[in-house]
């Protein structure tokens, strides 16, 4: 088995993904069938946010990856120039 911190990080990722999946499933699939005056609705944001938040997160993630990639490419180009 992997050593201590690797195991902890791995299991944390699994737990996080389970949490996100459960919350999102309830939000997107279960809530429409629940009466509007049930208290469970106060634990969830209004429905459009179920699409907006993942989209924004996706755009941010892709931009971060893209800029990191661009940064590394630029560094490589600068090094080649000064050599």
């Amino acid at each position: 088995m992997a050593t201590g911190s690797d195991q902890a990080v791995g299991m944390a990722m699994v737990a996080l993904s389970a949490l996100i999946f459960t919350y999102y499933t309830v939000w997107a699939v279960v809530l429409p069938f629940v009466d509007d005056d049930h208290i469970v609705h106060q634990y969830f944001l209004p429905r459009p946010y179920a699409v907006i938040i993942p989209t924004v997160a996706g755009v941010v993630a892709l931009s971060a990856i893209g800029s990191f990639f661009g940064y590394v490419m630029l560094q490589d180009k600068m090094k080649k120039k000064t050599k």
Partner: protein
Amino acid sequence: MTKLLQWLLGVGLLLGTWACLVWDLVPAQLSPQWKEVVWVAPMYLLMSFACYSLATIGYRVATFNDCEDAAKELQQEIEEARRDLAKKGLKLS
């Protein structure tokens, strides 16, 4: 047919069905609750895939076996190579 075409066809079919249902292009009678679920369906599938990927990566990280012997052997080989190259005049960081 290439894999890319297969995937595009599958995705196209799914998105087509979704568009027909959401924009009332087909005479299907869906209750308002089911309509809500269908409207969110593509994003839900995307999120499920993302969660599955995260869980798989996390699980594989947690269960990856350490190879103590191979690690030590590799360190020794690195030292040998470093000494050998230093003798021949190459400087390693």
